[in-house]
């Protein structure tokens, strides 16, 4: 099985995340970035599948220069090679344009399975995997909390709001995995050293035959007109339990009409 894993480089959620006032896009330069935590589960799943059979894992990202960090981390975990689509024209792209670029890159790569995380930790839209399946005409088996590969059949467990479903499709398929699917490995020292020798290609929009007018902020089908920091919550009342904490809590809820 040859697997392409789509990953995203995102602003660190534990740091200050904000927007650029100039064009209302996510500020990606002013904050520390890292491989989206939820994509590590997709890499782990791809590694497990190839380790149990054969084939290579190619990690694919679309993003500015610093996104190369996400590719490097993936290679350190064990992916075999990397592709980084990097082009100034991509700045401000929405999910529709991002999925277009990813789809064109995937077409150029050998793939039995395309693997994604369940969402990015910045935009957290969860729509790109479904968009990729739509664009590539692949069966969509997504939000998997468990993945089994049996010959050419991929079977997943999907824990939905109303029911748990078992979904099956034949390769080539598109799979997305949740954080329940596995336990991502840490890069080993050996893995970190080996990653330095692994091939990484950088592609531009021209390499993919994507016209610059189809991507970027001006081509986005949505527009952010304003962003506003949430006002800080006013300091609340804190009491220490000295035997009456429960009664005090109930009294507070009663004054707020919750009881």
């Amino acid at each position: 099985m040859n697997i392409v894993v789509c990953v995203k480089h995102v602003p660190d959620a534990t740091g200050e995340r904000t927007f650029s006032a100039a064009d209302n896009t996510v500020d990606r330069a002013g904050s520390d970035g890292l491989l989206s935590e939820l994509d590590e589960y997709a890499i782990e799943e791809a590694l497990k599948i190839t380790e149990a059979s054969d084939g290579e894992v190619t990690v694919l990202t679309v993003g500015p220069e610093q996104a190369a960090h996400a590719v490097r981390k993936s290679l350190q975990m064990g992916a075999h090679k990397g592709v980084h689509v990097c082009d100034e024209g991509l700045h401000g792209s929405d999910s529709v344009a991002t999925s277009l670029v990813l789809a064109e890159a995937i077409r150029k790569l050998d793939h039995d399975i395309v693997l994604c995380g369940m969402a990015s930790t910045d935009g957290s839209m969860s729509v790109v995997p479904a968009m990729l399946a739509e664009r590539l005409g692949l069966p969509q088996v997504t939000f998997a909390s468990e993945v089994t590969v049996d010959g050419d059949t991929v079977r997943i467990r999907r824990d939905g709001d109303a029911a748990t479903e078992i979904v099956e499709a034949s390769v080539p398929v598109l799979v997305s995995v949740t954080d329940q699917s596995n336990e991502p490995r840490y890069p080993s020292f050996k893995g970190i050293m080996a990653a330095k020798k692994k091939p990484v290609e950088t592609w531009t929009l021209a390499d993919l035959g994507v016209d610059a007018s189809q991507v970027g902020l001006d081509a986005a089908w949505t527009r952010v007109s304003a962003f506003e920091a949430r006002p800080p919550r006013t300091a609340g009342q804190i009491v220490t339990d000295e035997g009456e904490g429960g009664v005090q809590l109930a009294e507070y809820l009663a004054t707020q009409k919750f009881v």
Partner: protein
Amino acid sequence: MSEVLVLVDHVDGEVRKTTAELLTLAARVGEPAAVFMGSQVDVALEALARFGATKVYVLDDAALGDFLVAPKAEALAQLVATTLPAAVLIPSSAEGKEIAGRLAIKAESGIITDAVDVVAAYGGVQTTQSVFAGNFTVTASVTKGTPIITVKPNSVTPIEIAGAAEVETFTVEISEAAKTARIVERQPREATGRPELTEAAIVVSGGRGTGGDFTAVEAFADALGAAVGASRAAVDSGWYPHSFQIGQTGKTVSPRLYVATGISGAIQHRAGMQTSQTIVAVNKDAEAPIFELVDFGVVGDLKKVLPQATDEVLRRKG
């Protein structure tokens, strides 16, 4: 006035609360028209009429339930192409967002996910979203095609207003290409007897501080008529099922009252509850970051505080 399509969220025809909310929002922008996929529309009609649906499009094809997401997106795209609505509103569930994503590509239309408000503006639709763990509020609009918007639960209080709910059967043609991810087994989730987590007005959740025993958390929740949630730490420890996890990789809730017990309040958790109206916490550690968010907090052992609070709530309720 143009129609605004609302994709009905239902289980065997039983309409979920989010549908009433979406119909209420749709009425601000145009004529709310419900889109019902499945065969049990008879069960749903009363609720759809009560919350103002002027029309109910019924799309019934076995493939809609037999295969994952793709047939539903295809069916909805066919309806959009025929009815040319002013917007399409879809519940912000995992499936809803995936249907919306595929529909956006098919209909060459812009998509906005996780809206917490939808209003009419400049002859179109404007949305509000809460992003970066609830730290920012973003105003956005769709600039191409039919606005496709997924809306979070609890975004609006549903308004009862009688609608004609005129049934119109819409015949869909599902392609072979959309029938490739087959659902081979479906196990309905067991009812807990408590409100649905994302829809509940009150949520009581437990974390590491429970030590794995949710008895006190559940008893307090039941006294308040609340749903029960859990932090990632509690779920990862195997103490509570993942479907009750609140946070970045679980559910996002925005209830009127959120009670966090034995939860420190890491960013991953805050992402799932920070927009709650009133926040209350019980935690042994006075330095826990959750106390930065609260309207009322008790520094103490939840195993002592919660049972006492439960008794007091029940006593006051008489």
